[in-house]
Each structure stands twice: as structure tokens, then as C-alpha cells.
């Protein structure tokens, strides 16, 4: 149960615009959590004050090190507690009136048996009495490209940080958040805020969604869920957020048992996942199926906006890939609508007679950069299609490295999403990154591209 005081609290936005951060347990020792966090703050160019705290040192990484939170000249917005679990309660108690929020990154709490459970209860009580908001424990905390706060304590040579972008991710699991960040960074997809809230003893997914709904930096939200305790509040917060920007979620642990010792068919059939799915529907949350779809969705929504509907235009220079894309679209409920008659006629006058004019539109081995761009312009302007999938095979000799930039200019349909599919070996894989650099979501297989298209289309439907 959430303590009542939070209802009157001003929310958690200060976690995302802190003027000052204290790092409790600061040390010079490389590889230690607090050391990694301090280095991240310096490297990322955190603009506010940083206070290393540790009674053992007078300076850490060239900064003055204070003996306790009490020694902070005024107040700090956030304290990151990188100390052993048993030391957390006393530090929190001493921080009363000195900090607004704490990120407890260490484990050894509710996830670690009875002693840990009691420790977490104690932490919650102290937070309740002192009005200190808590993220964690047992979490990675916040990676924020806006405030440049980075408490993710994995060194950057292991886990790359994504650049600034419009996607925000909230996750119960720290390792999931970290891995997703690393993949997004490698794919050139930027993020705004990433929050790993771990045991969520105080701040939970609903608090984060409340904040992200109002956050102008966040254009889309991806959520990783293991469990939700306050279901109705989650539905409220997610509904409010999804009314303003796309919200998508993956729920793991689908095999949960039914609701009651079932005595009706309904009770027997209603597994945990069915209820989560019902909740997602109520809240307008796009349901994602597993890790691959999560990444595809992040790529699609990280680089493109919602689609207005499910009508897909396929443009390719490989007939086979076109048919494969078309099949994949059908099986995911996307509409590969035929070309409207007038448009087909127009295209026939523009293109050589051996181009296959239809949907898929096959530009054959005679494809050029210009023919791709022209096809895109002619088919996507007007209200015939909602999403374009361009499958570029690199065999046709006339295609050049200018193609990605020509496509990214989206002639005539600035609002509609475009997805690229470019399967192939060494040469094609090198071209893959050109699309990425042009800001287009690019996929190596037809199935992956279509999956992303289906996520964008699901964003269009409410109810």
C-alpha cells in the first residue's frame, strides 16, 4: 500500500532536474559503484553541484568529500546511496530535511529474504516520516540525457549510453533497462529518461508515468513490467499518459496462475496475464510481446511517430522480399491495400513498363535512388496509406549511398512513419548504418520491419 502522504506530494519531477546530487559512499577505488557513478556524472557533464560523501576521505576524484549528508552547505535534491543495505536506515534518518529524494542502488532488501524485508520496511517508514521520496532499492536509478544524471553503475566500456532523444524507458528490472539502453545506443536511438525502480518501495511505475505524461522531453514511453501492485492507479496514470503520447509495455512472467482457487470457468481461465492485457487495453497501452518486439517498438517509436491507421505501402526492388513483407503484414493484421486506380495509372506513366506497379510496388533491378524517392512521394502523399515499408536490396547497380538521405526527407508526407528493411550480407550491412545515420528505423529482416509497423499501427487504436 502506498502511504497517504504521497497524494499531497508535489511528485517526483525533481529527480529529473536536480540542482545538486550527493553520492553517499564515495570512493576513489575504481570499479566500485559510487566511483562509477561519480565518473559518469563528470563525464556526462552533470550541470549541478556534486557532493561526494564519505567520512573516510577528504577528497574524491578531485572534489571535496564531505563526512556526512549533514555537512552539505544547504540542501541536496538527490542523494544516491551506494552503501551496504544495513547502513541505509541510519543515513536516511540523518538526511531528514537535507534531501528531497534518495536513489538506493544497492540490493539486500525485500528481494533478499526476511532480514532484507524488515530492512526495507524500516526504510519505507523513515521515508514516510521524513517526506524523502525513494527510488529503489535494488535498482539502477536514473539515466537522464536532459539533466545528465547517470546513476547506472555499469561502466561505459561495457554498456554504451544512448544519445539524447525522445524515448523514455521505465523498468522494474535494472539489467533489462541496461541491456535495452546498450542496444538502443548501438542502434543510434536516443532516449530522454530511463528509470530503473527495482523494488519500488516508494516510487513506482504509476509515479513515473504521471511524470512522463507531463514531460515535454518525452515523446514516447516504453515500460518493462514484472508485476504491478496498485493496478487501478497504474491504469489511471497510463491512461493519462497514453492520451498524450504512445505508451507501450512488455509484461514478463506471463504464466502466472489464476486469480482464485477457481470455481467458475472464468476464474480458471483468467490467468494473471489476461488481466494485465485487459488493463493495458483499458489504459490505451500498446502490448509488446517479448524482448525483440520491445526493441523493435523502441526503434520505431524512438525514430518515428504513431501511425494514423494500419494501411501499409510496400516499396521494394526485390519482388520476393515484397511478397514476404506482404505476407507478414497480413498475419499481423496490417492492411496492404491495393493502389488506388488513379494512382496506379499515374505511376505507370512515370515508370518504365517493366516495373510492377501495385502494392508491393516492385522497382526491379533497374531501381534508382530517384525511383525509390518518387514512389515514396507519390504513394504516401494523400490519404491512401499510413505507414511505408521500404525494402531496399542493394543489387541494382544504380543505387547509391545517397538513398538513405533521399528517403529520410520524406517528400510530401512528413507525418507518416517510414520503416526500412535491408536484408543482405557485408555490403548491405554496411548500408544498414547509413539508414540509421539518416534517422530512419532500419531492420535486417522483413519480419522485424513488419513487427515494428504493427506496433506503430497499434498505437493508432484506442479501446
Amino acid at each position, binding site marked *: 500500500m502506498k502511504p497517504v502522504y504521497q497524494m499531497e506530494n508535489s511528485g517526483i519531477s525533481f529527480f529529473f532536474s536536480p540542482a545538486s546530487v550527493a553520492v553517499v559512499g564515495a570512493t576513489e577505488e575504481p570499479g566500485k559503484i559510487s566511483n562509477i557513478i561519480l565518473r559518469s556524472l563528470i563525464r556526462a557533464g552533470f550541470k549541478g553541484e556534486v557532493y561526494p560523501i564519505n567520512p573516510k576521505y577528504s577528497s574524491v576524484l578531485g572534489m571535496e568529500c564531505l563526512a556526512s549528508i549533514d555537512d552539505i552547505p544547504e540542501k541536496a535534491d538527490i542523494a544516491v546511496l551506494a552503501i551496504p543495505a544495513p547502513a541505509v536506515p541510519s543515513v536516511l534518518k540523518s538526511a531528514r530535511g537535507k534531501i528531497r529524494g534518495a536513489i538506493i542502488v544497492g540490493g539486500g532488501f525485500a528481494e533478499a529474504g526476511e532480514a532484507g524485508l524488515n530492512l526495507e520496511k524500516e526504510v519505507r517508514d523513515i521515508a514516510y516520516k521524513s517526506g524523502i521520496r525513494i527510488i529503489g532499492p535494488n535498482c539502477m536509478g536514473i539515466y537522464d540525457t536532459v539533466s545528465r544524471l547517470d546513476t547506472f553503475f555499469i561502466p561505459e566500456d561495457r554498456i554504451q549510453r544512448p544519445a539524447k532523444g525522445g524515448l523514455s524507458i521505465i523498468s522494474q528490472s535494472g539489467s533489462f533497462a541496461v541491456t535495452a539502453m546498450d542496444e538502443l545506443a548501438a542502434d543510434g536511438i536516443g532516449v530522454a529518461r530511463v528509470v530503473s525502480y527495482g523494488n519500488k518501495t516508494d516510487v513506482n511505475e504509476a509515479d513515473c508515468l504521471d511524470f512522463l505524461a507531463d514531460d515535454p522531453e518525452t515523446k514516447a514511453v516504453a515500460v518493462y513490467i514484472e508485476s504491478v501492485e496498485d493496478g*487501478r492507479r497504474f491504469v489511471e496514470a497510463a491512461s493519462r499518459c497514453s492520451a498524450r503520447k504512445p505508451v507501450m509495455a512488455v509484461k514478463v512472467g506471463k504464466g502466472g496462475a489464476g486469480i482464485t482457487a477457481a470455481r467458475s*470457468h472464468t476464474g480458471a*481461465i483468467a490467468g494473471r496475464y489476461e488481466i494485465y492485457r485487459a488493463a493495458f487495453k483499458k489504459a490505451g497501452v500498446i502490448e509488446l510481446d517479448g524482448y525483440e518486439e520491445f526493441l523493435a517498438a523502441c526503434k520505431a517509436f524512438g525514430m518515428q511517430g504513431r501511425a494514423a491507421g494500419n494501411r501499409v505501402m510496400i516499396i521494394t526492388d526485390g519482388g520476393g522480399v515484397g511478397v514476404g513483407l506482404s505476407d507478414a503484414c497480413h498475419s499481423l493484421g496490417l492492411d496492404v491495400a491495393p493502389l488506388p486506380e488513379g494512382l496506379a495509372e499515374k505511376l505507370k506513366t512515370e515508370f518504365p513498363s517493366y516495373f510492377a506497379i501495385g502494392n508491393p510496388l516492385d522497382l526491379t533491378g533497374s531501381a534508382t535512388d530517384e525511383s525509390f524517392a518518387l514512389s515514396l512521394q507519390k504513394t504516401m502523399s494523400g490519404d491512401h496509406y499510413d505507414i511505408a515499408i521500404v525494402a531496399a536490396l542493394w543489387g541494382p547497380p544504380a543505387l547509391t549511398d545517397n538513398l538513405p538521405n533521399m528517403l529520410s526527407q520524406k517528400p510530401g508526407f512528413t507525418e507518416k512513419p517510414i520503416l526500412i528493411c535491408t536484408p543482405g550480407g557485408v555490403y548491405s550491412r554496411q548500408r544498414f548504418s547509413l539508414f540509421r545515420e539518416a534517422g530512419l528505423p532500419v531492420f535486417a529482416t522483413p519480419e522485424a520491419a513488419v513487427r515494428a509497423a504493427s506496433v506503430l499501427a497499434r498505437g493508432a487504436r484506442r479501446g
Partner: protein
Amino acid sequence: MDTRAIEKIVKEALSLGRKNLLEPEAKAIIGHASIPVASHRVVKDVVGAIEAAKEINYPVALKVVSPDILHKSDAGGVSLNIKDASELETRWTQMILELADEMPLSAIEGFLVEEMAPPGTEVIIGGIRDAQFGPAVMFGLGGVAVELLKDVSFRLAPVTKEEAFAMMAEVKSFPLLTGYRGSTYKDLDAIANAIMKVGEILTEVSSIKELEINPLVVYERGAVAVDARAIIS
């Protein structure tokens, strides 16, 4: 919806220490929410049954009413399509013997004599209460589709009319309601109404944990609840 009357039924059953409602009680509840219910009488003995059947008109169904028997047909407690008084007497005797055999220790509170609903398409509408997300409603088509294939859809309650229609359209067996292979187009509004009402009951009456109409028989015009059960606490 008569919330107070529904609460009264649940309260009385709870005061008797019961965790589930009898079929007539569950039917009274959905009746109070204006979901159409097959007309029926509860009787104590065979004389009462014959009198009730005369009022209801043959053919009738005969069902045992017992707090101890949740799966009536498995225990031999359901007899369908009874055509006249003499058949009713015979079937009555058969049922008593079979129940004595299958469930000798169960308390029998009486028998339900009910009009035989004409054949239609059977659907199941269930309400459940989830610890985290609160009341939710399930929809599916009757029989194998639900039990074996789990071809069902869920929504959190309260359910809007739009959501109720989306729930129907979501199940794979939906075409069975819309004229598949020459069958007739069924009254989807009547189903939507029942879905919404079940959601409303669960939302309004917190002592009902599960409520299930199985089946609701649906026709070209209208629908009727033939069996219902409820878990309370």
C-alpha cells in the same frame, strides 16, 4: 440495477456461512440487473414440480438446488427436455437415485423447474475480481471454445458498450454470432448489455468475487441466461 436487492441476497447467503450462491440466487442477482433469465420456480417435491411445470409450460428442465453440488450435471442433477407430467415424475425419481449414488452427503435444498430455452448460440460471460486490478469481465462462446481453446477476451470493469463489442469481435469464434455458414445473425446488443451489466454488478457489489452466466443463450432477437453461479465472501 437494484443494488440493494443484490446485496441482500449475498448477505443472507454469507450469514448462512456459504461461499457460493445457489443457482436461483445467482439468477435473482442477474435478474435484478435486468439481464433476462429463463423463467423458473423452486420447488420442494415432485407435486410442486408438476404444478410449476404446468404454469411454465412444457418442455421443462429439472435441476437440483444444493449448496454442496457445484457441477450439477456431473452429479446427475440436471434433466432436460421433459415433455409432460409423467415424464417429469420418472425423471425426478431417476435424479433422486443418481444423486444418492453420486453425492450421498449433499444437502438438497430443493429443485428448480425451468422453461426449456429454445436452441440458440451459447455464450459465456464471467466476472472476476482481481486483487491488483479489481473487477474484470470475460466473454467467450460456449462449450469447447472456452474450455479447450480458451478463446476468450477480457476487459476491466466497468465495461463500455464500445468495449463490449470489441470483446466480442476479438474472439476467434465471433463469426458464429454473425451468420457463419448460413446461421442467423445474433443479437449482439443483448450480449453487450449482459457484459456491461456483469461488469456493473462486480463494480457495485464488492462481496461478489466471481459471477458467471454459462450459458447465455442468444437469439436473433434477445438472449436468456440459462445457468448462473456466483462466488461470494
